């Protein structure tokens, strides 16, 4: 099988140096050539759109009778609470799968500018999650609202907060994915990254609600999952939360801080 001796070697065309988008294209190819990506996105769609539709179908009648005591607006994005897990998983895997397999060395040998690697990963992840999150929310709204409409309590896309919550779902997914990726970059381990992010969003975020007084109230408002998720629903089940865009700004600031720390560590650390 000695193919080398008989092979004509030609120098690769080296006319143009790779453009600024080379790292981006590499990350795009990487992102879409592992199965975890389509699986995570399919799971997001099924949970986000499927559960929303199901819950609306099951509770439309009770909502119409007015004996639920919860805002209708909270139901048209109901599944997003569960769909956000997939954004966390995808975000963590984009980074930690490279550390788990040793791929990170190939990545950094190909693109030694680590800032460029991180920026490309973040751009691919955030763009995909924004599009997927928005489409998921929109599909859930369309599916769920069909049942609500039948009971005469449907919401129009132009109603207060509905369109915002669709785009907001995409933004929240993107932010959550970046948060998980940043934590993944710091701990370099899939299970650890997932435990930390899911624990913060689902467990700690809910536990602080039982803390007494103003302290507990502010801790509740500022936890990343609580602050960021308000933008993803027309009306929240939890009246304590910050206003949608204020909350999202707080969430983005938190993500930015973790990402900045992760970037600083990443650019200095041995691969």
């Amino acid at each position, binding site marked *: 099988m000695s193919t080398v001796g008989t092979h004509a070697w030609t120098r*690769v065309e080296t006319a143009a*140096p*790779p453009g600024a988008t080379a790292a981006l294209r590499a990350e795009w190819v990487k992102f879409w050539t592992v199965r975890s990506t389509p699986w995570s996105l399919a799971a997001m769609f099924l949970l986000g759109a499927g559960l929303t539709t199901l819950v609306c179908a099951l509770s439309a009648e009770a909502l119409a009778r007015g004996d639920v005591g919860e805002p209708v607006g909270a139901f048209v994005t109901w599944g997003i609470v569960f769909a956000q897990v997939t954004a966390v998983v995808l975000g963590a895997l984009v980074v930690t799968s490279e550390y788990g*397999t040793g791929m990170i060395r190939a990545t950094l040998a*190909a693109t*030694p500018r680590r800032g460029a690697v991180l920026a490309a990963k973040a751009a691919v992840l955030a763009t995909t999650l924004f599009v997927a999150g928005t489409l998921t929310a929109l599909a859930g709204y369309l599916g769920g609202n069909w049942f609500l409409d039948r009971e005469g309590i449907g919401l129009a896309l132009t109603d207060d907060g509905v369109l915002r919550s669709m785009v907001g779902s995409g933004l929240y997914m993107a932010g959550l994915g970046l948060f998980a990726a940043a934590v993944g970059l710091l701990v370099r381990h899939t299970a650890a990254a997932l435990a930390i992010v899911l624990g913060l969003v689902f467990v700690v975020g809910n536990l602080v609600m039982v803390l007494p007084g103003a302290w507990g109230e502010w801790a509740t408002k500022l936890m990343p999952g609580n602050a960021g998720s308000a933008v993803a629903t027309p009306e929240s089940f939890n009246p304590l939360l910050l206003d949608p865009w204020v909350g999202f700004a707080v969430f983005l600031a938190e993500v930015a801080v973790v990402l900045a720390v992760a970037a600083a560590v990443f650019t200095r650390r*041995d691969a």
Partner: protein
Amino acid sequence: MISAHRLTKTYGDRTAVDGISFTVEPGRVTGFLGPNGAGKSTTMRMVLGLDRPTSGSVTVNGRRYADYPAPLREVGALLEARALHPGRSARDHLRWLAASNGIPRTRVDEVLDLVGITAVADQRVGRFSLGMGQRLGIAAALIGDPPVVVLDEPVNGLDPEGIRWVRTLARDLATEGRTVFVSSHLMSEMALTADHLVVIGRGRVLADCSTAEFVAQHAASHVRVRSPQHDQVATLLRHQGLDVAAHGGELRVRGLDPAGVGELVGRSGLLLHELTLVRSSLEDAFMTLTADSVEYAGAAR
């Protein structure tokens, strides 16, 4: 050309690479030889800008690796066979590498063909044998058609045919004028592949010379002598100032060739049953040279 200058790497209070300097010239295969834990992989990671040297520097064709805008076109490296995502196909792995350095996609098929894995190019690499994984790693190293090729333990886990293939490839790449730097902990393999050797142990350069020179200097030999008059022969040879050691029923004589030993014994009218020149293997030479620098020497030694 790769130039390391007083290259040092410490992890906490452990010194992995201790101020080593060497150059790897183009047009020949340079073997980077040392026992496990000697600092070979750490050195290679510093060459590729993956690990930051604690002090000193290493450059490839005059520039730091990380300063190249498209490093894969300058240096191709096989670092570890498993620096791959097991769920990605071989073709996709090469596709993202090509994209990262602006290398035309046609080159992906070329290198797949070159290493002979075109037939399995669309299979996930998690299913690959160690040998196929190594071939893919070498395809990745060659994707930018680089003038400098760095291969870290390329024959690990390969079958004899694969080993011969890597050896031929390394030699062909050097013949084409490329700089080829191959690490191994197997002296016998390097003796067949490398023109030049850089031997390290415990992070220091122990030898930096041509393979032939290394063999001449370090592969010791002795003459094995068996005689029914064992003791008289030993006394006779010792009187001639030779180094004679008794091992069971044989004598190991150093300092004279078999002809000389035979003549001495014959002139004294003593009987000989065996007279053999024994060369210690290169592996032995390597062991002797690095004996003091093996990180975890076996307790029995």
